[in-house]
């Protein structure tokens, strides 16, 4: 019999497994005998084989391999009390029950220190979710507090309510995602991608707004060339290129995401172009502004208005045609 103690997080209680059936597989997917939920552990990471006397830990062509004493290994013969790192998780092996019982006391003291949230959610989840949620929250609040002209006590109260709901909802979302992600990181990745996109979008919107406020009549905007789709696609492509060399699955995932996001943006943008009078936020959705004092007088504006008048006339003719066909007059 082999006893394995797995430290999934530094602060929570380690899980113990008593293994009698061999070979025993370790990995992220649910088909494995021992499931470890971590981004750093591969779907099928490694297996433990028993050849009668000795136990051997074999790597199953995983991404992050097995590490023992800071050396990366493909195979490792297990000794009593060995510490091996799989992905970012520490495994400790024991051959008999007595030695294991002695280490248990230490674990309990660790447990008493862990907080309520950590009992329900793993440290990993907290890291991945709050890492992206908090910057977004701070960005929004920071902008509202400093740059919006009517930030009074009323808006402060509103902000408090906003913060409460933000955390409440993101907590619910976290629990939901942890239930949905059966060892696969799809949902977590999706969440992360959405959060990053949102943060970047808000950052661009706000920074442009601040810039507009400071230099509304300047040609600097010209240089910036504010175009949301452009910025976002550049960022996405960066993600694809970055992951190309590291993880294939993530790269493919991100590539699909690029296509989806850009399609969404194009859809949104075409709607916005259709009714630009809605004017969501100043000139943010306005593509590269090309103007200078000398050639943007009224003489240049009028042809534009005339063009839209002609466009409206075209629409009118189409409508009359349609009606004539329909009513036969």
């Amino acid at each position, binding site marked *: 019999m082999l006893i394995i103690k797995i430290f999934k997080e530094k602060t929570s209680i380690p899980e113990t497994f008593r293994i009698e059936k061999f070979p025993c597989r370790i990995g992220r997917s649910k088909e494995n005998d021992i499931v470890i939920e971590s981004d750093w552990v591969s779907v099928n990471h490694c297996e433990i084989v028993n050849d009668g006397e000795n136990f051997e830990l074999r790597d199953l062509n995983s991404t992050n391999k097995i590490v023992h004493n800071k050396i990366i290994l493909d195979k490792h013969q297990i000794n009593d009390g060995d510490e091996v790192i799989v992905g970012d998780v520490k495994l400790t092996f024991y051959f008999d029950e007595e030695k294991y019982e002695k280490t248990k006391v230490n674990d309990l003291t660790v447990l008493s220190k862990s907080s309520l949230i950590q009992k329900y959610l793993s440290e990993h989840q907290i890291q991945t979710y709050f890492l992206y949620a908090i910057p977004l929250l701070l960005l929004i609040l920071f902008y509202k507090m400093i*740059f*919006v*002209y*009517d930030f009074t006590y009323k808006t402060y109260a509103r902000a408090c309510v906003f913060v409460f709901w933000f955390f409440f909802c993101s907590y619910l979302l976290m629990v939901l995602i942890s239930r949905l992600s059966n060892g696969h990181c799809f949902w977590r990745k999706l969440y992360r991608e959405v959060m990053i996109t949102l943060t970047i979008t808000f950052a661009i919107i706000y920074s442009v*707004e*601040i810039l*507009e*406020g*400071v230099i*509304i*009549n*300047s040609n600097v905007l010209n240089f910036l060339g504010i175009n949301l789709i452009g910025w976002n696609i550049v960022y996405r492509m960066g993600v694809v290129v970055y992951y190309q060399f590291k993880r294939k699955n993530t790269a493919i995932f991100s590539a699909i995401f690029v296509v989806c996001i850009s399609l969404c943006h194009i859809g949104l943008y075409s709607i916005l172009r259709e*009714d*630009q*009078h*809605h*004017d969501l*936020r*100043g*000139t943010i959705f*306005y593509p590269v*502004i090309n*103007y200078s*004092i000398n050639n*943007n*007088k*009224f003489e*240049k*504006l*009028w042809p*534009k*208005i*005339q063009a*839209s*008048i002609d*466009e*409206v*006339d075209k*629409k*009118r003719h189409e*409508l*009359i045609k349609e009606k004539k066909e329909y*009513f036969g*007059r």
Partner: protein
Amino acid sequence: MKKYYFSVTLGMVLSLLTNLNASTSNYLASQVYSDLERKVFQVKTALSKDAPKSSYGTGFVVAIDGKIITNYHVVSRSLEKYNTYQIYVDVEGEMFEAKILEIDIIHDLALLKIDKKLDNSLKIRMQNIKIGERIFSMGIPKDLGLSITEGIYNGIKKNGLYENIHMSNPLNAGMSGGPVIDSKGELVGVNVSILLKSQNISFAVTSKSVKRILDKYNSRGKDVVQYSNKNDKAVDSEIEKQLLNAQESLTTDFMNTAKKSKKEGLWSYTKPSKELTCWQVDNSDKDKNLYHEKKEICYVPSSSHVKHDLYGGTYELKYSIMSTDKLSLVKFYNYVNSVYNGEQMIESLYINFFANDNYTKYECDKDIVFNTKDIPFKINYCVKAYVNYKGIYDVDFKAVTLLKDKNALFLRLTLRGFTSNNINQFIQTLLNDIRFSNNVDYKNI
């Protein structure tokens, strides 16, 4: 104590006077009523002779061969394409089908004709009337039967560019199109509208306009046109002509006063015409004195009614002048931006997404433009065309500028039923007339 005493005596005198007058006017009213009883009829539109009405009003005889005057809005239903409403005139219980001979959408008049010889017609009074003279309104209010109300002539009020009689006769739905008569039984005007949320302020079309529409018909000679939904091309071209006239006179009026400019704080802009009704509001931040805002809204009080959801020949101007000492430039920019974005360009999404029978979809765009004084403007505009009338457009236009020393100006222009030439004139003069008194070189901002 003294005041109270005075008011009581005054009240007593007044009540005495009215009592006296009432007794004399009763006599007059009954005389006028019996005189006109057979010259005033109910006019209605309905799908057939016996069908229930879809709209109703009053009309009166102007020529014994069966010519009847009523309001255009009473019979406008029958001119709508793809509808089969007919006009019927109720002459002593008998329904006569009526044809439209002439329309005047600006003054809201229509000349009808029925195939019946009538006994006698109303005389049109061309002499001037004194303010304070007693006048009577006749009509069939709320389908209750012919009735007469009395009031006082309060002079000619300019409703936009057009003259209307201002009187104190109480009017109700169904009385529109009825005659306004002096004590001799001569026509003074035609009931047309009331001022909502007011006490006995009502308006009538002048007898001059009635004369004009009759003259117009007579001058046609043999080229008489039939206005009906079966002849919609003639209707459309006539309405188009009148809409064009209305906008042309508004534009010339605008251009005449546009030479003068109005100063407001450090800014100066085109002086709004006298024909407009103007309001000014101080929207400054009262709690902390963070920013100052002065808002001026001017609009033409009248419009040319074509259908129940189609009108033209009117425009609105809005100026907002903003400045601040306390806010930072970014915060002030955010405030100006909220003013700019808060101004809705279009009443509802529905109108824009789906073209309806009357208008095309909106066509919108934005730009950054400098005027002749090199003040930069951020501009949004939307244009839509009238489907049935050629070369007539609605324009929604807004512009904002924010100068370096935290002075901002917002301009909003709404044009209803204008030609592209006049739209050009409006926008050009309004933009180029905006000036800032501090002679800053804007090129270096």
